[in-house]
């Protein structure tokens, strides 16, 4: 299991990433900082450290899984396919389950 990773950039804020508790029993996804200007870039940075987590969140084509949702600063993202929504440098990205999946 990889250790909790933090990307420190001196003098610059970095987006914060947090995952639903429900994913943790399958694959440990600790809260962490991950650099990027879009949701795709932030997740790519995060999954570089925890590769197995990627397929729990994204489908085979790299889109957000049908019954997952992502919020950036408490706003649900609009682009579930390319994950192109912007992430502020001090933003928070939250990956949670949608109730739609039962």
């Amino acid at each position, binding site marked *: 299991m990889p250790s909790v990773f933090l990307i420190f950039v001196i003098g610059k804020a970095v987006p914060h990433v947090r995952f639903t508790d429900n994913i943790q029993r399958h*694959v440990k996804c600790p809260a962490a900082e991950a650099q990027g200007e879009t949701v795709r870039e932030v997740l790519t940075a995060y999954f570089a450290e925890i590769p*197995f987590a990627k*397929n729990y969140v994204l489908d*085979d*084509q790299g889109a957000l899984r049908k*019954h*997952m949702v992502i919020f950036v600063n408490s706003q649900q993202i609009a682009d579930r396919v390319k994950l192109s929504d912007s992430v502020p440098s001090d933003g928070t990205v939250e990956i949670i389950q949608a109730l739609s999946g*039962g």
Partner: protein
Amino acid sequence: MSDRILVATRKGLFTITKSNTGWSISQADFLADNCSMVMHDPRDGMLLVGLDHGHFGCKMHRSRNGGKSWEECASPAYPEKPDDFEDIPNPMSNTVIKWNTELLWELQPGGNDEPGVIWCGTLPGGLFRSNDAGDSWELNRTLWEDPRRQEWFGGGFDYPGIHSIHVDPRDSAHILLGVSCGGVWRTTDGGKTWECDGTGMRAEYMPEEKAYDPGIQDPHILVRCRDSLDCLWVQHHNGIFRSTDNARSWQEITDVKPSTFGFAVAVHPADPNTAWFVPAIKDEKRIPVDAKVVVTRTRDGGETFEQLSKGLPQEHAYDLTFRHSLDVDENGDRLVFGTTTGSLWVSEDQGDSWQNVSTHLPPIYCTRFVKE
């Protein structure tokens, strides 16, 4: 004689073992997780389980120590869809099938001459091969990109799927697939080319002129006799079919009481004329006829059938046995079947009598003897 049975269920993987006191549940793994398929590899003892985590997608785990511990391995994933790939909308729903794994529906080891090779059938219809015991998977693109594949349609699911894979022990490059709904497919060159060339299957649910089209058939399961490899049985949506020429032609078997409808069939490993079925009322009702659970058995290649009920519930029983939930051991004496209501029965006398192991397991998707 197999003393161990793997049972994949809606809420976990259970191991059933025989001791001096009889059959009982000896181990539970992946509790609360949806286990769609399990495989024991007789070549090296590896166990492989397919999971469906719903929100989090399909995943694969394996054990190299008989189930003492498990590790997640790679799960079959469809490659990036090429921009120039021309989809043909599904003829039944007019929808395009996505390049995403929806269910891990079948797992089978490759031939004895190809250690590490595993085949996986999936919904929505992709066939995957691993050359490294699950470290990586590759989609068979010739089948996936075959225009005829896009005529497949779902039977019971929104998507079509590959539920049966048979690697010919005489030639590992000769493989048969059972597809719901897409018929029986064959490759003789390890998957480079594919044909759907069997004749004789009949789909009553289709317009008359399409009824015998090999590519629209719904074989619920395809099983092969171990010692008579050209002899195969199919429990079809439309009834029971048998082939004695390695799936080149099929003969329909009708007039079987209480019903020819069902999902599961098992064939005796040494006697191609002996096969077992678990019937139900066709086809949208899918409950036992007269609410009595019975197994039907033929010993003469389908000429006659017996109804076997000793030890099985004969009133107010609403158990349905799914396609992967009936199995026979390597001697042909022991059978096991599990049901949607979580009941599990074992027979040690070729079905003459049945012992109930549990009536309160989660819904059962697959039962497989561990054949050493």
